[in-house]
C-alpha cells in the first residue's frame, strides 16, 4: 500500500533521514520506535510532503507521489495524526471534522461512521476543539484524519500525555481499522502498547532504520529494544 525506497529528507542543510526504505501492506500495523530526536516524526512529515524529500521514491497503491506538493498528498489517501494532536483549537469539533471531510469533498453525513467510533465527540460538535479534555482531543485528532477516508493512516505518539486506559481505548479503535484494510504507521513510545497492537516494528536511530522485526520476535527477545530505546520489560 505504502512503499518508501531510499528516501532522504532534510531541514534546510541538515539531512535528518538517510535512505529510509520500508513497505506497509493493507491491513498491517507497522510500529516506529526510537529515542527522542531519532527521526520518527520526520519520517511521517516526509511522507506527508511537509519536509522536502532530497532523494528516493514514495509510492501509494503503486502511484509515485514524491513530487506532489504537500496539499495534494491527503487526497491520495494518506491521513496524518500529528504529534501533540495539532487540532485547530479555536475551530469547533464539527469544523475540525469538516477539514477532514473536505479533502474528498465529502458531505457532512460521511462523518457519522467516524462519530460512531468516538460517540463522545457527537456531544461536543459545537464546542471549540481547544476546550476538550486531552483524551477527547486525541480522539478528535484521529477522527479528523479518518474523515479523509484514508488508505494509509499515520499516527505520531497518540498516547503522549494520556492515561493508559484512554490510550488503550484509542489504540483498540485504531486497531479495528485494519479489518477494513487501512494500513497504519504508528509511532509509539510505550513498549507494551506497541508490542500489543503492532505487527512489525522499525527501530530508528539517527534517521536510519537500525532494526526491523516482528512484534512477537521483539517480545520474545527484547535485546534490540534495549539497545535502540534503552528499555527492558
Amino acid at each position, binding site marked *: 500500500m505504502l512503499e518508501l525506497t531510499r528516501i532522504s529528507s532534510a531541514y534546510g542543510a541538515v539531512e535528518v533521514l538517510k535512505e529510509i526504505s520500508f513497505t506497509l501492506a493493507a491491513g498491517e500495523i507497522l510500529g516506529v520506535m526510537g529515542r527522542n530526536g531519532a527521526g520518527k516524526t520526520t519520517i511521517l512529515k516526509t511522507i*506527508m*510532503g*511537509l519536509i522536502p524529500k532530497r532523494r528516493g521514491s514514495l509510492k501509494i497503491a503503486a502511484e509515485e507521489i514524491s513530487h506532489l*506538493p*504537500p*496539499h*495534494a*498528498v*491527503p*487526497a491520495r489517501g494518506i491521513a*496524518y495524526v*500529528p504529534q501533540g494532536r*495539532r487540532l*485547530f*483549537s*479555536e*475551530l469547533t469539533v464539527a*469544523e475540525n471534522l*469538516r*477539514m*477532514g471531510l*473536505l*479533502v474528498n469533498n465529502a458531505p457532512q453525513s460521511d462523518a457519522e461512521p467516524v462519530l460512531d467510533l468516538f460517540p463522545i465527540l457527537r456531544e461536543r460538535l459545537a464546542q471549540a476543539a*481547544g476546550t476538550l479534555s486531552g483524551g477527547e482531543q486525541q480522539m478528535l485528532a484521529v477522527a*479528523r484524519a479518518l474523515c*479523509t477516508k484514508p488508505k494509509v493512516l499515520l499516527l505520531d505518539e497518540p498516547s503522549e500525555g494520556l492515561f493508559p486506559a484512554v490510550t488503550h481505548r484509542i489504540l483498540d479503535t485504531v486497531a479495528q481499522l485494519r479489518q477494513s484494510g487501512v494500513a497504519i504507521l504508528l509511532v509509539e513510545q510505550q513498549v507494551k502498547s506497541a508490542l500489543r497492537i503492532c505487527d512489525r516494528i522499525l527501530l530508528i536511530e539517527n534517521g536510519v532504520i537500525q532494526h526491523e522485526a516482528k512484534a512477537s520476535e521483539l517480545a520474545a527477545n527484547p535485546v534490540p529494544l534495549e539497545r535502540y530505546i534503552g528499555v527492558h520489560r
Partner: protein
Amino acid sequence: MITGPALLLALMEGAVGAAVLALTALGLSLVFGVMRVINIAHGEFVMLGAIIVWWCSAELLGAHPALGFLLALVMAPVVVGLIAMAADWLVLRRINYDPERTIVATMGLLYVIQQSVLMTYGPDARPIEPPVYFRIQLPWFGYSGYKLIVIALALLLLGITWLILSKSRIGLYMRATRLDAETAQAFGVPVRRVYASVFALGAMLAAVSGVLIAPIQQAHYLMGADPLLLSFIVVIVGGLGNLRGTLLAAALIGIGEGMIAVLFSPTLAKMIATLLVALVLIARPGGLMRESAP
C-alpha cells in the same frame, strides 16, 4: 458647553468613522492573523479605492455621480484585489512571507503605489461628489443622507465578510491556516493560494472603505497614512489577528476618535488614540479581547 444635539452629532460622525475604520482594520487584521504579514501598504489600498471613484466619477464619464459611484464600488475591489494578488505573487511569495522582510517589502509597495498615482493622477486633492444629496432633517440639525448610507454599506460588507469567514470553505481554510498552517496543509489546504486570497480580500476591504470615504474627504495620493495609522491602533488594541477584537476596537476607537474630533479637535483625538494603544499594551499586552496567544 457640550449640548445634547452636539453630542448626538458627534456620535453620528463617530459612527461613520467607526464603520469605515472597521472595514479597513478588518483587512489589516486578516492579513496579519493568517499570513503574519504586517502590511505597511494597507493604507495605499484605501487611497487607490478613493482614486478609482474619481476615475469613475462624473468628470470622466459624464454620467450621474451615483452611477460612477456604483461602478467604483464594483471596480475598486476588483482592480485593487488584482493588484494585491500580483504583489503577493511577485513579492511576498518570493521572500517566503518572512515576517521581517515583508515589512520592508510592503513599505516598498507603498512607495510604488504612491508614486504611480502621483505620476498619473497628480498631486491635487480632488473633491468627489457624493452619489446622493438628500439630507435627514433632525429637529436640531440636518444630517447627510450619504453618511448614513456609508454606515449601512459598511455594516453590510462586514456582514458578508463575516459570513464568508464563518460559513464558506475558503473561510474555513483561512481560519485553519491562521491557527496552524502546516497542519492545514496536511488536510489538503493549498496554503499559498489561501495567502493570496487573504491578501486580496484584505486589500479589497481597504479599497471599498476608500470608495466610501472619498465623497466625504477628498481623493489625494497621500491620503493612505491616516487609515493605516488608525487601523494599526485598532489591530493592536483588538489583539493582533483577533477578528472579534478588531471589530470591537474599531467601534470604540472610531466612535471615540470621531466624537473627540468633532467636540474638541482632530489632533487631540489622534493623541488620545495613540495614548490608548500605549495603555492597552501596558495593561493587556494580548489586546482587549484576549482569548488565545496570537
